[in-house]
């Protein structure tokens, strides 16, 4: 187990280093420090101000190779900052990035945690229902609705949700956010509803297949033969045995709760980490973008390791090593 964990950590570290390297190369293949500076201090800024900004932000040093001092390059500085978690300040507005992360993680979690906590049981309940009524019209209708739900772009859900719920029915605000507990639910209701609708289709499709496969197994027949009720068989026998694929699907999502939901946050005006990422891309804000990518890579690796560990908990037959 320890060897396995060490091996996974080493591979994970190499993956993260590779991602950081790729990000650096790709970013500076398409953007010059002048562009970053111009976006930060304005299109009208004269060349002198641009040059000063570049010097102030350390983008004037050689990018990859410095014959005079091999340790004084942008690439090494990039790695140093990320590996020591010295995130520095945003290129766009000079705000400390760690402060921005701290400000953004709350709103992100306010959306993603309820989305996860409501979405999982809802998807499990719906898929258990259609699996239970398999080969009836409830099953067929459920599958058709799931396929339709997963085929529609999230943008359509967002725009339709905003128009239908926010404009026509006037149940909730169209967009916005307030951390005040008295009104936060009002703002989160619509993005939650949209997020649930967007995610439930593919989840139900997947879990239904898993449940149907399980319900055809001998132990289920045995349970029914012993006189167990429908609910008990589905909840106590089928559900635990279907946990491995469900865990694979769900545990890997948990770390990404922290990085927020890119489109939902952006369209609903939720100031979370997802919208920080989108803003950094739009603003050529390399300093922020690399932190978000770095954290995303770290969380991805963590999610993979967590998933593997979860297998051992869900299925005693699985041994890591």
């Amino acid at each position: 187990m320890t060897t396995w964990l060490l091996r996974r950590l080493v591979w994970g570290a190499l993956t993260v280093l590779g991602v950081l390297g790729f990000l650096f190369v790709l970013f500076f293949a398409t953007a010059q420090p002048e562009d970053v500076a111009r976006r930060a201090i304005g299109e009208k800024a004269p060349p002198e101000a641009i040059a000063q900004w570049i010097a102030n932000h350390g983008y004037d040093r050689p990018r990859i190779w410095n014959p005079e001092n091999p340790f004084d390059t942008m690439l090494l500085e990039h790695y140093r900052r990320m590996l020591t978690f010295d995130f520095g300040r945003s290129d766009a507005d000079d705000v400390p990035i760690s402060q921005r992360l701290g400000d953004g993680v709350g709103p992100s979690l306010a959306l993603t945690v309820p989305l996860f906590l409501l979405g999982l049981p809802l998807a499990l309940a719906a898929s258990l229902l259609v699996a239970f009524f398999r080969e009836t019209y409830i099953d067929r209708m459920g599958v058709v609705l799931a396929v339709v739900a997963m085929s529609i772009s999230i943008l359509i859900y967002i725009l339709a949700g905003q128009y239908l719920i926010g404009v026509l029915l006037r149940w909730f605000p169209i967009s916005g956010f307030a951390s005040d507990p008295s009104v936060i639910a009002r703002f989160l209701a619509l993005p939650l509803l949209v997020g649930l609708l967007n995610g439930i289709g593919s989840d139900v499709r997947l879990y239904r297949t898993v449940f149907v496969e399980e319900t055809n197994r001998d132990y289920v027949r045995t349970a029914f033969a012993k006189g167990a009720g429908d609910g008990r068989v589905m909840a106590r026998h089928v559900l635990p045995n279907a946990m491995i694929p469900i865990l694979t699907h769900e545990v890997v999502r948990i770390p990404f709760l922290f990085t927020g939901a890119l489109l939902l946050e952006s369209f609903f005006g939720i100031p979370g980490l997802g919208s920080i990422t989108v803003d950094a891309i739009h603003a050529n804000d390399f300093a922020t973008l690399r932190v978000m990518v770095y954290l995303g890579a770290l969380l991805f690796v963590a999610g993979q390791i967590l998933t593997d560990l979860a297998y051992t908990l869900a299925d005693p037959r699985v041994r890591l090593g």
Partner: protein
Amino acid sequence: MSRQQAFALALGLGLAAFGCSNNPYPDADDTLRVFYTAYSEPPKTLDPQVAYSTVDHDVLSNIYETLLEYHYLKRPYQLIPGLVVDVPEAEPQPDGTVAYRFQLRRGVLFAEDPSFSLGGEGVVQRELLASDVAFGILRIADPAVNSPVLVPLSKIAGLAAFGERLQKLRDEEPGFSSLRIDEQYRRAGPATGVRATNPDRLEIVTQVPYPQILYWFAMPFTSPVPWEAVAWYDGEGGRPGFSEIAVGTGPFRLTRYDKRSRIVLDRNPDWWGARHPEWGAPSATYPTEGMPEDVARGTLDPALAGRALPFLDRIEMRLEKETIPAFAKFTQGYYDRSTIPKESFDQAVRNGALSPEMEARGMRLERAVRPGVFYLGFNMEDPVVGAAAGDRGRLLRQAMSLAVDVQEFLRIFLNDRGIPAQSPIPPGIFGYDEEYRNPFRTPDLARARALLAEAGYAGGIDPETRRPLRITFDTGDTSVQSRLRYLYFIDAWKRLGLDVELAATNYNQFRDKVRRGAYQLFMWGWVADYPDPENFLFLLWSELAQSNGGGPNTANFADPRYDALFHDMKDRGNDDRRLEQIAEMRALLEHERPWIELFHPEDYALVHGWLQGFAPMGLPVPTWKYHAVDAEARAERRTAWNRPVRWPLAAGVVLAVALLVPGIVTWRRERRA
């Protein structure tokens, strides 16, 4: 209770818990005098010496004040005293420099702030001094501040030298950078052209005549800043950086700055204008004079005219990155004014006027031409379309100019939001001539073909290749929408037989091409910093050519006569001679055609009937102190417009039950069988 009933109840309770309301604000705020507005991207900085975007200025120019301001209603734009008693006159000096003496108002206070404790224990506030204005101006030269306006303001004697001395000390003297900022500036020595001669007197000296300097004193860059705030807000120890706070003397103060969602400005109870209405200061009193249209618009309403400002208690700004939700909230009454997204344009505007539906809701449409210009530019250093091609290149440019029908372009792509440009100078700026018609800006394909033939490109054919002349149109926008716009121009030139190829890259690559001079034709725009023709005609001054250090003259236009005229014109006051010079420069541009002038953009704003004192300004200057709201009328309308429709919820529950129950019943029957 059945499971279906329980589900319906849970949903109902859920909706009830959420209040089932689309009101994004606390209900208690409904009757307050709050101005609600949206912004589309977070401010980059609130440092007045650095901020250069409209949203930055929207926030900080209501908190920081300037020595001068613009008259709210009079056009052309007219400077009025802000923090000073009078607009100063230029005083030419024997040595060729020009002095401006500003007399500051006494008794002006900065808003309360903990940073003032640096000046003494328990101090939370102090009076504005001339040295605060000087400090703000010196910050422009501080390399660590990196102000984007140092170059034009380097005409102030000794300002650039101050920055150089400061940097030298920081580089050479260990520990200098950790000194308090006021001490650093003191050690670097004064700038000779920035002198606080008394607590209420400031003398500014320009090295050369530069009448536009006064406009800079109406921009936030020259706002007074307390040194205490700069020293205190250093981004350390949990304190925000100076770019994230604002400590000014203005009518509002910053009370909440979650810039990624919400910004709140509250009325500053210590504002000098509110404490001293008896002064009748022009910048603290609603104007009693304006333009004829102000009478019809209601912006000279006797209920407002002559009253002490401001009328609002609070300004609520909410981030709305997407235009459609922002506009929908405006129509629900949750924003007091809005721009019109193109998707909703037909809903709001019919035949250039407000649609009957919007009018029935008591809204108003406000239109204002922005002091800006959009144009197609030729790279004058290009061997085919530029000056090197001599008469042939000029005739080609003239022909291409004659092919572009901008009126049609505006109709198709911008819902007619703009007026065709005849020269770089827009309406409202000295030198704009309403009667002037550029002979190369009225579409005339026959004449264009004749000019092309005269250039040696008969039918658009390049005699060297015997194929249509190939020209590259470089853009930094790859979106489909922009592509359609560029194709409109390309189609126009195709009618002359020219083969114009669109080279659309991302913006960074486009900038790189511009840097390398690898472009022939481009589209660009410019919006004025200040309302002076110099701020437009400098875009074609050879000293600011793109090829000469990356200046804003992207066309790389260089004409000795134009340069000489510009050189003289830029330093003159608005007299007849200046008008003649501008006319001559305009004629040169008309003939040489480094630009194909397209349009001056026109802003359309929708305003609710309960918002009073709203006049479009064009320039990014503070206007919110002139706004007033009828909060009762707004609350009434909001309630009427936003009653939730609940029946679809019950219908949804009934539908779900109706779909599921037969299946369950059948399944149970089959199981029993």
